[in-house]
């Protein structure tokens, strides 16, 4: 009993400190993990052997592999190339610019890290808006919201999806057959709503729209050779993702193989690549696995699951919808990674009690994915866009985000709920 109380306390205090953002989340995560293992060893419920088994190396390997590919692509100017190309293609028409920049950001973030995509595309967005003489705010907010929404479509698009896929054994194709159709509708709904919410800003026609035509995308591409090599490797990796089930290989193995192949082919300055990898994210993930593993080992999660057994009388569809909105609500205020890592063992526990959790995984993916749109701190992409805008003359305020992002979150979650209801038989498979 004391082990359960103390491990729950370590988890809750760590989570609270992570959410309060007073101390760096990786430091708290690592310290919380060490405390949990210390407690486990003192009270004999958790040891180093268990720690190694609870860390999901499939997730960490996939993240690391994709981070290396992004680190190779980042300095080539590829992301800027895409943004400038979208700007040119729009011919300075505001609505077209919003759709094109939103689509490009979404498509890229479906396969590559959201934050990197937004960090590199947003400054070019500000450039395009400034030379056109229009407000960049609608475009920046749209990029973050649409990339969060689009990222939910693929296994590699969003960290919660990687975690869910690893825990549930979902393949890349499973995401394309289950999540992509839902995301397609929600994404279009989000775009429609953004167009409506920003109708006044988008109605302002730039006086000299032709100025974007003098932007030459090729000039932004600093290293076309490396760009081509990384894109080829990335393409091959995506093809392998399709066949992971048939070939009996894990996504982590594919991503790390792609990273190794790309490094060998390009042979970059390794120090520079290592600096670009977000080690803090990897350590944070590993720490959370250890903390939640401790909760599981002490029996806290088992207790929660036994209490949830009362929910067995609730129809599975309704249970899924409750989980979708519950995880979305939390994800709006909290990083969706800790939520997903904490909810995964709960779902696994429910399975052991005879629940069909297959549809619940998808509910969690949609909730965690779309919920992040709700507030300015809901997702990393939102935070990045907001902090970039603070360096401009038109900063995005939390109040503005609530007026633009929250409606998008509510609409996407509603559309996802309707589709979840209609396609429920699909999600049971």
């Amino acid at each position: 009993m004391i082990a359960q109380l103390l491990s729950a306390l370590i988890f809750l205090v760590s989570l609270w400190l992570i959410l309060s953002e007073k101390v760096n989340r990786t430091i708290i995560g690592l310290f919380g993990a060490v405390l949990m293992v210390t407690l486990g060893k003192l009270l004999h419920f958790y040891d180093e052997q268990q720690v190694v088994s609870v860390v999901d190396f499939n997730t960490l390997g996939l993240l690391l592999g994709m981070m290396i590919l992004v680190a190779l692509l980042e300095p080539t100017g590829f992301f800027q190339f895409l943004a400038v190309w979208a700007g040119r293609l729009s011919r300075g028409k505001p609505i077209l610019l919003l759709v094109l920049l939103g689509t490009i950001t979404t498509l890229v973030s479906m396969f590559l890290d959201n934050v990197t995509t937004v960090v590199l595309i947003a400054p070019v967005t500000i450039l395009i808006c400034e030379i056109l003489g229009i407000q960049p705010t609608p475009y920046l907010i749209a990029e973050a919201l649409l990339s969060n929404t689009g990222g939910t479509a693929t296994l590699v698009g969003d960290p919660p999806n990687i975690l869910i896929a690893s825990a549930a054994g979902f393949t890349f194709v499973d995401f394309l057959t289950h999540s992509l159709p839902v995301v397609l509708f929600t994404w279009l709904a989000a775009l429609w709503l953004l167009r409506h919410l920003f109708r006044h800003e988008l109605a302002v026609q730039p006086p000299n729209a032709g100025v974007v035509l003098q932007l030459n995308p090729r000039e932004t591409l600093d290293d076309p050779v490396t760009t081509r090599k990384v894109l080829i490797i990335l393409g091959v990796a995506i093809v392998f993702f399709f066949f992971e089930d048939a070939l009996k290989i894990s996504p982590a193995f594919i991503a790390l193989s792609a990273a190794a192949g790309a490094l060998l082919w390009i042979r970059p300055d390794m120090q520079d690549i290592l600096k670009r990898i977000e080690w803090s994210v990897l350590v944070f993930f590993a720490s959370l696995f250890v903390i939640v593993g401790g909760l599981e080992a002490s029996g806290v999660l088992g207790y929660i699951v036994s209490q949830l057994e009362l929910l067995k009388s609730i129809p599975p569809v309704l249970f899924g919808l409750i989980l979708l909105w519950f995880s979305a609500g939390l994800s709006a205020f909290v990083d969706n990674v800790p939520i997903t890592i904490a909810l995964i063992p709960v779902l696994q526990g429910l399975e052991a009690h005879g629940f069909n959790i297959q549809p619940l995984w998808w509910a969690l993916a949609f909730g965690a994915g779309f919920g992040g749109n709700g507030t300015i701190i809901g997702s990393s992409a939102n935070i990045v866009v907001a902090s970039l805008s603070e360096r401009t003359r038109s900063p995005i305020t939390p109040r503005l985000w609530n007026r633009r992002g929250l409606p998008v979150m509510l609409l996407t979650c509603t559309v996802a709920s309707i589709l979840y209801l209609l396609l429920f038989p699909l999600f049971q498979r």
Partner: protein
Amino acid sequence: MDFLFPMGESVMIKTCMKQNVISIPVTATIREAAALVVKHHIGLLPVIDPNGKPVGIVRLSDLLSLELPDFFDLLPDLDFVHDFGAVETSRPSAEELDRPITHLIQPGIFVEESCGLVRAFALMIKHHLYDLPVISNGGVLVGIASRVDIGAAILYNWQSVDTNSQ
């Protein structure tokens, strides 16, 4: 230009500085600072308190930062932008121009009249300054020297190096 110091000796900045310094009171607005720069065609304005003591500087580039677009700081490379479009015709708002100069003031580097020329030049390079304000022992602004003023005075000294002595 004629220099009024003996060739080959250690020379102080006061020998080559301009004594007629255009400065601005700390209570002035950004608009007044810009007008002074335009009128006198200068790149740096020392900001002084009512006692004539300098409290900081405002450079031409600090004033121009109000006109530079936001993307200037956000993008590492601007070469691919061949036409700045609307940025070229946008102006700071009246509200922005009527703000006190204290919004743009930078902590300045001030040297005393006895400062050596090489030290003065080195400080300018290190702090990316093109003009260096000079203060008296009492801390009052008494002069200003440009990179060219100081550099030419240093080069003037080279004439004392005898070719045949090498």
